[in-house]
């Protein structure tokens, strides 16, 4: 792997007293955002990159904690000295979005009005709300304009939203494995995941914290389903095939095939640390994302709200069937129609939607090349 990890990092917390009115009409009277930064903000404050996380991500994007060397950031392979998001050049900011479950204000936080966890009362948050909260964090950090906003999947949607909502505050958007809005199939997958959680007897209408329980079964199923859609058929075939754990059929419903074992393990692991209400919120934010909606569904018009000087790098993966390359090309087409500066790479990687998290010389080479041309 070229370059190095950023090494030991620390998370920070910013408290905001100014109320945030959300797209859903809900109001957060005050809130916290946890974030991490890597590298140094230059004197001109022109070298800041915001990394936006996807459905299950958070602020711990790179490096590790001094007391937890194995807790490595979720996108460590792309960030660090000499890596594409080069901390020798850039000041990188990662945060946990509102509604999250890793320290920023979310459904498991205490509602100051009741002294109890928000639970079901936590308002629905939209991608545009996250962008607003991120803009306030940028203000706090003294960043007027991001050199780039970068994200994969739901993170890419935030980068896209930045170019529309805050066109003066973003010089480049790197939108990876994303889409201008979900397809019916995408929404359908999300709804099955939500139904798994909502129908879990331990869900208690979202107020499971008070019952000292968590809808682990539902969350586990939701994650198992999600996980299938993040991988490619080929990759699953290569990785698991029809391998049996014990070599022969057991003629029962225990774990038999390796793929079952893997999915159950992933489901259990996820259900052990993730909050079900956050999962519900994140999938709703995905479903609602449709920046062209306010322009009558006209994506060209919506992307025309971006600044003419903003540069775009759009990347997709050939085996991603959740957010296919065709979805990225829709964004590319809308940008071209607006004569925006856009480059598009369709990367041949075998890891389905999850490819965006993988380390690959060509993929990282493209991101690296794009970022190296950014003038600071």
């Amino acid at each position, binding site marked *: 792997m070229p370059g190095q990890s950023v090494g030991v990092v620390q998370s920070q917390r910013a408290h905001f007293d100014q109320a945030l009115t959300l797209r859903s009409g809900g109001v957060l009277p005050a809130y916290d955002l946890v974030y991490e930064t890597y590298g140094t903000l230059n004197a001109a404050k022109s070298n800041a990159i915001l990394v936006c996380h996807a459905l299950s991500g958070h602020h711990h994007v790179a490096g590790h904690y001094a007391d937890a060397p194995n807790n490595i950031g979720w996108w460590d392979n792309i960030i660090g000295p000499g890596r594409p998001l080069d901390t020798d050049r850039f000041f990188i900011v990662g945060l946990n979005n509102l509604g999250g479950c890793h320290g920023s204000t979310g459904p498991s936080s205490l509602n100051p009005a009741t002294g109890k966890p928000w639970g079901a009362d936590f308002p629905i948050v939209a991608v545009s709300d996250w962008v607003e909260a991120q803009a306030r964090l940028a203000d706090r950090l003294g960043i007027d304009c991001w050199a780039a906003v970068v994200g994969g999947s739901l993170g890419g949607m935030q980068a896209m939203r930045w170019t529309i909502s805050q066109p003066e505050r973003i010089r480049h958007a790197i939108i990876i494995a994303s889409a201008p809005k979900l397809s019916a199939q995408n929404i359908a997958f999300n709804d099955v995941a939500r139904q798994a959680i909502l129908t879990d007897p331990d869900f208690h209408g979202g107020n499971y914290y008070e019952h000292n329980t968590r809808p682990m079964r539902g969350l586990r199923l939701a994650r198992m389903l999600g996980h299938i859609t993040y991988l490619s058929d080929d990759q699953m075939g290569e990785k698991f095939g029809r391998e049996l754990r014990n070599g022969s059929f057991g003629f029962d419903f225990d774990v038999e095939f390796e793929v079952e074992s893997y999915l159950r393990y992933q489901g259990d692991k996820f259900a052990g640390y993730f909050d079900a209400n956050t999962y519900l919120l994140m999938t709703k934010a995905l479903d609602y994302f449709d920046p062209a909606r306010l322009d009558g569904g006209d994506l060209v018009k919506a992307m025309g709200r971006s600044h003419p000087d903003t540069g775009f*790098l759009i990347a997709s993966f050939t085996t991603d069937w959740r957010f296919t390359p065709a979805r990225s*090309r829709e964004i*590319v*087409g809308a940008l*071209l*129609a607006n*004569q925006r*500066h*856009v*480059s*598009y*790479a*369709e*990367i*041949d990687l075998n890891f389905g939607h999850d490819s965006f998290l993988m380390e690959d010389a*060509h993929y990282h*080479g*493209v991101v690296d*090349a*794009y970022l*190296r*041309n950014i003038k600071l």
Partner: protein
Amino acid sequence: MTTHTLGRPDFDVIAGWIEPGHRVLDLGCGDGTLLRHLIDTRGVQGVGVDMDDANVLAAIKNGINVIQGNLERGLGEFADQAFDHVVLSRTLQTVRHTEGVLREMLRIGREAVISFPNFAYWKNLRSVLDGRMPVSEDLPYQWYDSPNVRFFTLLDFEALCTQMGLIIRERHVLDEQGNLVESDDDKELNFLGSLAVFRLTQQR
């Protein structure tokens, strides 16, 4: 031997036809050398298209706006008449759907600029008469590793343009050294030219 910009004589011809500030789409842009040159010397707004990973990476390194895609599968991302010029340099002979690509170029652009190796160049003909497929400056491949799938001559191309109702606005024919070949006789041009460069528009 004259020296040519970037070692590509057809680039000089193409650059000469493009006015400052024009919007240029380069299909099969490679590492973006032509667009870089046009941006730096003519101040054009350029976009490239290439299907090859290494070329896309190289073009991005070159600071070019490049869209990864395959000409054969259409260029649906590009709106009608979005560009002043759509360039296809030394690529038409690698494309199967020749007519489709030509129509697509003139849908997207006001003008198509096309360069291609002329199979009827006398050295190529001599090579075939000698029993071997030609290998030259402008056809630099062995038959077994060539990306070229269509072999045609300057006159063949003009006949296709006529058949498709396309208007040839300008034509430059170059020899293997990249020098302009001039003649009033089309058959002589076809015989002496190694590389042809055309400017096409659609009938209005």
